[in-house]
């Protein structure tokens, strides 16, 4: 596939390494972890050792000091083979760690980021609530201010790593009656023990004994999902959770603005993930249609199949440019809200279309768990939902287009 102008020799080396790792270490275990909806502790540990859990953070925070494009390459390559692994890195990095790096105090960074960047513990981001999904400004979780701490009450749903993880950035309302509904929301850092203590001890990651846990924070029931089954999604419950003031993240009342910024970059990551998934489905389809023979020839020899493959590849090429261009804008400190939403919207809807076509090109075999396209098709759907649904992306894009023209 075409090399983009944004790539350097290191980017190629990173791509080779992650590709080899994904092919050799993840491909053989992906199916089993999907079927059994099992978190892949062993490979997550190895991803941590390779530096994939903190690629972009500085050396002194335990990261590898890479640029944002490198991060996108990592997500894309993992997603080609297994989206659950890709979302694990993505949710951990952009949702779980980046708010602390971007909005945290020096003390917060020193305390939490090295644990996360090395993959020693997993992180997550608690925004969504049962009654506040697309409408995240409707946050009802409440943080009551006391002398030196806050008391948090509420519940966050669909939280990636709520079970396996230990460090979370969560949002809660600190002002019950703000002038504007989206004001008065504040972010906090909370910690809990992983639900998988035995397994964490066995593999040697996932738990930090010395990390002080927040009383009153616990994981709820695990979601039984259509896709992303090897990724951990659960409720995160805050019950009279005592959060010391030094664990407030960013300024009081700035929570909404901050998570919008976090989501902008998260979206480019989900764009890269969706792109990788689409490419993975195309690769499977190229291999299968070249092997599978009907009417005396490989099915890839039929023109009707050429058209499918050519369309898939062309759309993927377009998605690549959207995703890496948005990444390049972000990396160079340029505005990227619209481009991030476009990349996420286009790539996520593309991976849904591509995986459906991939199953079709595999015929009946594609409908069985023998071939990865079945899992890929299930994994694709949530790309159009998580980190802002397709509808919300369109709203974000339209606001950028119309913002100055009409009162929205």
């Amino acid at each position, binding site marked *: 596939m075409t090399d983009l102008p944004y790539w350097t020799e290191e980017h190629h080396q990173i791509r080779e390494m992650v590709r080899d790792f994904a092919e050799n270490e993840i491909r053989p275990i992906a199916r089993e972890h999907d079927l059994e909806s099992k978190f892949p502790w062993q490979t997550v540990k190895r991803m941590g050792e390779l*530096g994939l859990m903190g690629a972009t953070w500085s*050396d002194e925070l335990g990261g590898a000091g890479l640029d944002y494009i490198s991060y996108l390459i990592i997500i894309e390559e993992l997603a080609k083979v297994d989206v659950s692994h890709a979302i694990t890195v993505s949710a951990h990095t952009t949702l779980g760690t980046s708010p602390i790096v971007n909005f945290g105090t020096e003390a917060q960074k020193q305390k939490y980021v090295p644990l996360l960047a090395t993959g020693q513990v997993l992180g997550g981001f608690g925004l969504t609530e049962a009654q506040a999904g697309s409408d995240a400004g409707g946050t009802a979780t409440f943080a009551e201010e006391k002398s030196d701490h806050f008391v948090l009450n509420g519940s966050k749903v669909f939280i990636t790593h709520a079970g396996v993880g230990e460090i979370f950035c969560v949002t809660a309302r600190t002002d019950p009656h703000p002038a504007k509904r989206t004001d008065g929301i504040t972010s906090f850092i909370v910690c809990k023990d992983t639900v998988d203590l035995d397994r964490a001890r066995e593999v040697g990651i996932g738990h930090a004994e010395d990390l002080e846990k927040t009383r009153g924070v616990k994981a709820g029931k695990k979601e039984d999902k259509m896709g992303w089954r090897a990724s951990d999604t659960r409720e995160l419950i805050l019950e009279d959770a005592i959060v010391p003031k030094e664990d407030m993240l960013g300024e009081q009342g700035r929570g909404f603005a901050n998570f919008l910024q976090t989501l902008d970059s998260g979206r480019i990551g989900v764009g890269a993930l969706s792109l990788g998934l689409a490419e993975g489905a195309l690769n499977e389809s190229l291999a299968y249609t070249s092997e599978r023979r009907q009417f005396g020839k490989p099915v890839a020899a039929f023109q009707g199949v050429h058209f499918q493959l050519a369309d898939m590849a062309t759309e993927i090429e377009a998605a690549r440019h959207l995703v890496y261009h948005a990444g390049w804008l972000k990396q160079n400190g340029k505005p990227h809200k619209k481009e991030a939403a476009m990349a996420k919207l286009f790539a996520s809807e593309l991976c849904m279309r591509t995986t459906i076509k991939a199953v079709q090109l595999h015929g009946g075999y594609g409908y069985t768990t023998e071939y990865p396209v079945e899992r890929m098709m299930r994994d694709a759907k949530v790309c159009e939902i998580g980190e802002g649904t397709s509808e919300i992306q369109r709203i974000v894009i339209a606001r950028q287009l119309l913002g100055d023209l009409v009162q929205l």
Partner: protein
Amino acid sequence: MKIAVCIKRVPDTETRIKIGADGKSIVEDGVKFVLNPYDEYAIEEALQLKEKSGDGEVVAIAMGSAASQETIRGALAMGADRGILLQTDAVSVNPVTVAKVLAAELDGAGYDLILFGKYAVDDSSQAVGTIVSELLSLPSVSAIGHLELADGKGTAEREIEGGVEVVEFSLPAVVTADKGLNEPRYPALRGIMMAKKKPLEVKPVELGDGGMTVIQLALPPERPEGRIVGEGPDAVPALIEALRTEAKVL
């Protein structure tokens, strides 16, 4: 402990090779080049020996065009300390000319151990490492599957037909690595970043006249399509017959 690892940039074994219009060379456009897979074992072994001994230096040496710098940086990303590119655009099919260039670089540089892959997957000559040992008058053990070093001596295991041969030799020495010698590591992100800052010396070299030229390259004949002889136990006699008379493997 000072260790040299000689490495080569080769086409990926998964690449579909096309033969050029001259009928003697491959078309390099669109071909992916990688570090020779057997050399990965050699690098890994060198790194493990250094780590075990607690100090020392691992030097990755390649002979080839400027593009081989990338291959050397791959070795540096895995953990080698520095690299040397013996740069030439000339291609030699005679392993003796290649070995002479490498031997000239290695001679007198104080290496305790010189590692090669057992062969390069592009021309598969299996000769360069062994010829280098001859040129340097050093002991050599080829295609090793296990290696131990102690008290200035090495012990290596080689797989031979139906068994294992254990060889003892004095250091310095040349060994060539077989698959299974170890599990080569993936370069960590930090290693990839650090590789940029490690020294990579480029030395232009001249290849002597090897007295050998390639006159023709040919692709293996296409495999004919498979045939289903029949199904179930009834098909066994027909299968045996076909294996005996058509495939001639029985």
